[in-house]
């Protein structure tokens, strides 16, 4: 099946007008399958450590000088954009709305999906979710519990996980 015009256009735009702190690159052998990287938003426990000043960084990373980089996979089913894309975290993350398998609890990925939303907007939503965890609508129950009981400790754990796992691959 030929790639729908919509996916082509979205992919092109993701390349030509990248969103700061977000990258999504389709696989060469399956253009519906994307490798995604999201930088933890600044001020959030997922921001990561300040970067090594000596390290050269890619231009699109300039605005996000911290090192919390989360990998996700994104797949566009045949019904896209009637149904939302399938997306999950590959990088381990300590977040009340993301479970151990990396699945994400987010309304726009579920009932509030609209075909007018796009990969770009979904990824932005996820990035926003990192900035504003919502333990009241949890997916990872234990994490949510921690979060509610002792938010500071939970944030510390999240930071710890971020430095531990959300490390950009050395190029």
């Amino acid at each position: 099946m030929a790639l729908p015009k919509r996916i082509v256009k979205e992919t092109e735009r993701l390349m030509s007008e990248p969103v700061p702190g977000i990258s999504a690159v389709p696989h060469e052998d399956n253009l519906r399958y994307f490798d995604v990287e999201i930088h933890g938003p600044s001020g959030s426990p997922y921001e990561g450590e300040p970067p090594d000043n000596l390290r050269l960084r890619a231009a699109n990373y300039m605005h996000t000088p911290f090192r919390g980089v989360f990998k996700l996979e994104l797949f566009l089913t045949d019904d896209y954009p009637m149904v939302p894309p399938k997306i999950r975290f590959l990088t381990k993350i300590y977040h009340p709305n993301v479970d151990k398998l990396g699945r994400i609890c987010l309304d726009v990925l579920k009932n509030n999906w609209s075909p007018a939303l796009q990969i770009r907007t979904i990824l932005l939503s996820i990035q926003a979710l990192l900035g504003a965890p919502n333990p009241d609508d949890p997916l990872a129950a234990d994490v949510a519990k921690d979060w509610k009981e002792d938010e500071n400790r939970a944030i510390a754990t999240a930071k710890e996980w971020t430095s531990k796992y959300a490390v950009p691959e050395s190029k």
Partner: protein
Amino acid sequence: MSWQDSEEPPTKKRRFFSDPVEDLVYPGTTNNAAAAATSQTSAAPPPQQQPPLPARPAQDASSNGPNAAREDPPIAFDLATFESFIGNKVEPEVIDVLRRSCRGDIQKAVNMYFDGTYKKLMKASPAPKPATQQTSQTDEEAEAQKRLLYRHQLDLLEEQGRARLKSATQPTHYTLTAEEEQKEAQRVAENRRALDLMQPYLSRVAKRESIPESRYIGAFGAEGWATRSGTNLLKFGDPVRITREKMQQPRPGRDRNDVIVRFTDAKGMEIGRLAKETANWVSSLIDQGVCKFEGTCFYAPDRLRTNETVYLQLKAYIIKSAFENGNVDLAANRTTTFFESKETTQERDLRLRQISLVKLFKEINLAPTRANEVAKNGRQGLLDAAEADEKKEKANTNTKNGNNPPGSSPPSSDAEEGEELEQGQLDALYRKAQSFDFNTPEAEPADTFAMDLRPYQKQSLHWMLSKEKDQKNEDRGVSMHPLWEEYSWPTKDCDDKDTVQVEGQPCFYVNPYSGEMSLQFPEQEQHCLGGILADEMGLGKTIQMLSLIHTHKSEAANIAAANPIDSVNQLSRLSNKSSNVVAAPKTTLVIAPMSLLAQWQSEAEAASKEGTLKSMVYYGDEKVADLQSMCAVSNIASAPDVIITSYGVVLSEFTQINKKGFRSFHTGLFSLNFFRVILDEGHNIKNRQSKTSKACYELNAEHRWVLTGTPIVNRLEDLFSLIRFLRVEPWNNFSFWRTFITVPFESKDFMRALDVVQTVLEPLVMRRTKDMKTPDGKLLVPLPPKTIEIVDVELSETERSVYEHIFTRAKRTFSNNIEKGTVMKAYTTIFAQILRLRQSCCHPLLVRNQDIVADEEEAGAQADAAAGLSDDMDLQSLIKQFTANTDVEKNANTFGAHVLQQIRDEASNECPVCSEEPMIEQTVTGCWHSACKKCLLDYIKHSMDRHQTPRCFNCREPLSLRDLFEVVRHDDDPNAGSSTPKISLQRLGVNESSSKVVALIKHLRALRKEHPVMKSVVFSQFTSFMSLIEPALTRANMRFLRLDGTMAQKARAAVLEEFRASNRFTILLISLRAGGVGLNLTQAKRVYMMDPWWSFAVEAQAIDRVHRMGQDDEVKVYRFIAKDSVEERMLKVQDRKKFIATSLGMMTDEEKKLARIEDIKELLS
């Protein structure tokens, strides 16, 4: 001794031929006889007794005297020549005998020498005597030898009178008594009278060459069985006489005639009879005087017992009279059989004669030297056909008896007659008729003709001129009559002896279809001063005809004055009724379908230099009261050159005349003898039974032409009607036609029937096709390219449900009938249902009750009006409405106004769902968010399928299907006027027509955007569908015209003229039936076919209205086909039909029915 010295004229062909009839005709003989009658009143033996036998040849020859005198005398008997022939010296007395008996003909002498007959002659006349002196023959033995020699003459004499024969066989001299002399003289006189009557025939015969009384044509073996016992009755080499005695009239109630043929020994004693299968046909040949037979015994047991088999060799001789009698009335009689309740004896004889002849030729292994290709191989087929014919006739007589009183011409049940031609056969026929020779000379049209003709048109002009002026076209040459075969006389007989040859007559001709025989070359005669111009559509038949009208004008006054007989001849048919038919020597009458009248007139004017051609439409109110005086010679200066009228007018005038019973007060079409009559779209008269056809036959004109692109629509009979109109003898006789074309065709002898048709057509028809190429490989008429594209139309859900409903019902009916085995009976019902199914593909309204639909719509519209939403909203006013509200509810409505303005903004027009840019059929929600129509609908459907409330993809407002509006831009409409393109919103699904109409409008919009002044044609079979397309066109602000079968001629002409003259984007809606033929719509460049027809040919013909000569631009054709529907399957049927027709060609009725059921199965699968 030279023959001049002899008192008797020279004799020729003495050995094999004698002429018991002919001698009586010869005046010289009459004189002799008369002289004898006067000088010999007593019964005493006259001094110049004529021994009956030797004298016969003399008389025979003398009968040919006058002719013989004219011809080259045979090579004179010259000793040296003779001896050089023979190769050695010959004894003087032998020479003497030979010289005497051959009367100077060396050929005969040589023959006699070699076959040894001279020896017998020497015995018979040992002393040389002058030929005039009668030999007295008292010797029994000599007499027997003579009889042997002239046995065949005796056989003939048998026919003349057995009494004479008897006396001749008696040893005493035969004496003519005075009484007999007188009788003889009387008979002579009678025969001369008879001969005079037959002169038209005989003159041809007699002028050429003397014809021997009978000629050898071949020999064959036959079995006989003995009727008596005895020893040495017959042995090898014994001559036997074949005699035929009609015992009595066939006994009443018995069908079979007696066919007994006896053979007797030389003395006339019956030995046996011929075996029945031989006797069957030998008897009828003898009875009917076609042949005589001489037999030789091949084998007979020494002791012959009754019923034992005797083997004979029979030599067949054709009797001269066979060539004369048959011709007179055979054809006519033979064919009436089919309509007579019972075969008359005469007809039966003729049929027997035909079959017997064919059998004879088969037995003697005589093959035609020239015949139609097919006929050569079809000998057995002919016999089979004849026999089948016989059976069929028997079967038919019963059924036909009831309907048709004997003698009534065409039976009333003709509607079904004539099998349909399969496509393949039609192709084959056309291929034959299309052997157009590109070297045909060209003719230049007259100066007054204002158009340029293409080379092929000049060629046909030349052909038409020569047809009208009856010039023989040398290229085509003289063709043999298709029904005849040419045979050579054998030069050797069965004993390898030379047979006598007649100079100038190496051949004879037989019509194996009727049993006719002739010595003359049966030329195919055509006296029709016109023909059929059957060029394919678009090759300019009208123009060619107009060029003929200009180029061949009768010298009106001259012809009218100098040749009044001419018109009388033409009118012979009507002479009894018409007392006052007047010649219209200047006028050509054109009869065309009503829709083409205006076109004819305008083309006639366009093709003529100004003032050189006066044309006039004779129709309706424009009819002239007194056509007769207008066109008559007296008014020649101002008479119109061309009168154009419709088939309807011809019919109605014809009916009027018939009502009145006489036409003395009639001054219309039938009161004139036109110079020329032209039937345009001549297949209008394909049914010879229709009144229109009959009316057309009765039109009077010197030249008769038929124009048609399809001379045969689906039956060979179609062609007959054209031939009938053209008055081509003899084919315009339906019986004749039926016998030689329809019947062979129906008895599956397709090739022969088609062959005959081809021969009939060849001199009459000029046909070129568009795909013909000139020798240098160019098309006759280079036409711009044409592309046909099938547009798949997806039915909407509601349409689909209507369709499915009808589909299920049709399928149920069909399978029920299949179970019951009544498919063929319920055929009509099933087809009616399939028709509904097809209609539902076009628009569900076509099958739904329109009132209900209207009510529903009205109710919906009222609800909307109450909600403040009208179906059509002008965007400008909406924006105004919203901006007006801005002050009050700022937040809510600025957004709305913003969107509405965005709608107009090209830049923001990417679909949020599919990213198409601009959106395809931009549609807005009730909350004013836009997407492609399809995306939006898909999304709503997707949500509904999951039992979710559809919400706006943008603002998540709940969506309602009713509150969707399609944005209609009028930027494709050049006449919108204002600088800002007008935009309006149209409620989705309300004003919208069916998917097909929507698809059409979409195409038209795209077209208007690209070619703002292009004209297109939209074809549909359903006029009601056209009525549903109209409002959609109106909404899209497209100018359209309509042409259908219900419109009066004037209205049609007006529509066509308007369409032609229009210089803006215009659409012509035409019903397939009204506009399928003839029209010239080359101003259009696009064709939209709204619904498929069973055979693509019909659609192709419609397309050719646009893609025809005169088209100067590429033509694009779009065929709208509902996806996954009966229409898609119809395309398959169309394909398969093409395939079957071309691959098989011939199917039986049963197979056809099966194929039809297959069609339906396929449609309902």
